[in-house]
């Protein structure tokens, strides 16, 4: 194994939180998902059990081969997957920045700057990334909370009625889509051998999914 560092389960929770939250906050992809209606919040909550169902195979495998990392198990295909995934994420960030605050700057500037930034973190290893997550995640979570507090006066609960207008099926569908978007099963798997308490991984995962579902519901 190249990487010798270990990260704590707490750090894993925060890493996952960051990697999902940033995207969802920038794009609100759930607005465009089924059930396309005011019942989206129910989908968001129901996504929690869906998350669990989707992560179950990965979790079972992780339990069995907790010492093998993703690359060691199934190599080349997943290298390509990660390249693709990383470039998508960089592109998404760049698109977000060129769309609103920097309309005249070429997108490559943001992609290169972010990539260099990420490369520097990778250069220092997983332990550093874990500690970084421990600083950034509380900042993000508290700012989400702060924003929610500040807009609380404008919240109109009546927008959420009628509840379940088209029945439960589209809502369930939406929950599935939300959970399926979370491709983090893959990320998860590659981090398994570096976690210092593999036994507690179930609790950590549950916390991650809970944070996802809860933060989406108000947004």
């Amino acid at each position, binding site marked *: 194994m190249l990487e010798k560092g270990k990260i704590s389960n707490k750090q894993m929770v925060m890493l996952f939180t960051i990697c999902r939250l940033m995207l969802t906050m920038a794009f609100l992809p759930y607005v465009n998902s089924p059930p396309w209606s005011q019942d989206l919040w129910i989908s968001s909550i129901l996504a929690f059990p869906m998350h669990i169902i989707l992560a179950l195979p990965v979790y079972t495998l992780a339990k069995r081969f907790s010492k093998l990392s993703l690359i060691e198990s199934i190599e080349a295909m997943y290298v390509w997957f990660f390249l693709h995934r990383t470039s998508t994420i960089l592109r998404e960030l760049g698109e977000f920045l060129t769309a609103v605050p920097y309309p005249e700057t070429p997108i490559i500037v943001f992609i290169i700057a972010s990539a260099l930034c990420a490369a520097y973190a990778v250069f220092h290893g997983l332990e*550093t990334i874990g500690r970084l997550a421990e600083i950034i995640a509380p900042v993000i979570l508290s700012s989400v909370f702060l924003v929610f507090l500040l807009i609380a006066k404008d919240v109109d609960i009546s927008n959420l009625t009628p509840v379940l207008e088209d029945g439960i099926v589209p809502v369930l569908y939406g929950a599935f889509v939300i959970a399926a978007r979370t491709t983090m099963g893959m990320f998860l798997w590659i981090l398994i051998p570096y976690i210092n308490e593999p036994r507690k991984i179930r609790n950590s995962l549950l916390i991650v999914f809970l944070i996802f579902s809860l933060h989406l519901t108000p947004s």
Partner: protein
Amino acid sequence: MLKWLRKLNRYFTSSNLKQKSNHSTSEKTETPLSSNIEENLLKIKDTFSNASDIVIREFEISTRVPIKAFIVYIDGLVDKDFVQMNLMKPLMIDINLSKADDEFDHKNALNIIYQRILTLSEVKKVKDFHETLDYILSGDTALFLDGFSTALIASLRGWESRNITPPDTDVVVRGPREGFTETLRISTSQLRRKIKNPNLKFEKMKIGKQTQTDVVIAYIKGIADEKIVEEVKRRLSKIDTDAILESGYIEQYIEDSPLSFLPTVGNSEKPDIVAAKMLEGRVAILTDGTPFALTVPYLFIEAFQSSEDYYSRPFYASILRLLRFVAYFISVFSPALYVALTTYHQEMLPPAMLISIAAAREGTPFPASVEALMMGIIYEILKEAGVRLPRPVGQAVSIVGALVIGEAAVSASLIGAPMVIVVSLTAIASYVVASINDTVSIMRFVYVLLAAFLGLFGIMIGAAVFLTHMVSLKSFGVPYLSPIAPIVTEDLKDVFFRPPLWKMDKRPQLIAKEENMVRQKPDLMPNPPKNDRK
């Protein structure tokens, strides 16, 4: 590119591993002293030729069987009165009057002098020539007797030293005002007076091939982690250099990340601060010749913790602690934020503010980024000049700085008034967290440049890289940003707030020895009886 990087890396690491230490006295070849006094005298005179401050006094011990003797010391390092009264007088006069005279002969002269004649508390017997030289150079007086290959070393040191005065750094309103001085012995005594405990250890080392500087590793056995103590010793013994003139020399030879601009070794001038740090399990390194003691491991948050926080009551101290963090962020980010907001993100400012800023910047020739860099450089110049200038001129400089550069530049509309406000706010704020002032200055310029190129995104990228760098650092095995990252729940309460003393039951988790974490009995919260008289 990668090859080149690797080469660079090897260059910086290899120099550390190249040589093993060969400095200390132990590796010098042993040359025993001769039993012939003339030979010893010749050797000493030869060694100290052309050294005008050496004093050699030959005399005779006036007993029934007279014995030739001489003493050697360095003028200015010994207390002459004491040498005359307590070394020369007993040997030349008192020995006649005592009973020892009758038993005195060439065989037991040394023992009799050592045990019955010299009324000094600190006398050592030394057989090695180089060891004798070390003692003489450190200010001891050596006594040689004819017929003995042993020298008696009497410690009669006394030299002019500075009085204990309030130091210029770490100024407090409430708390002890004494500071360390340049004399190592006085510093150790100040620490010993704070911590009256046999577990307080002072391990001595000599570093510097030419200067032979005394360095003391101070720690409290049982509280300090042995691994850290061992690591300190290992790093100190690796220093193989000519001179250690200040503890800064040692700091630069032992720090974890010499290529980082963040300090990973702390320093302090005050015994109470050093004692408090040792009580938390840290190791202090005291150096002869400087009032600054080093403490390791040094964490980032120590810059925000003042000794006065713990001496005053917790409420206002907690507010001050938070205020220091705010001031730190202001001093690092405010010029960069101003540049980013006025150049790229005008929409983020409230309209009224935007209009007044635009009005103030009307007619100024430079863009905000150039203004910020210029004012930053001018401020650094003023600061440096203020430190170096003689005191009477200092006032003139502050008037020139404040009036000419601030007021006149604005009224001549060379620089916008908001920029002056931002820079002066920055300057004041950077002194709230004085101990990491230098890194703040560097960061400020970097952020202004980044903000000039990429606006808020540039600041964000810079902050991300800086944060990554900070969390990657370690100081003697302890993560630099702990207890924030990694989170140490137990210690987190003493970061942004100052908890009441009766709540701080445990020592810092990553620093103190694992088996001995408890600082005090739990539930020490004062709880006076309710039934007192009305």
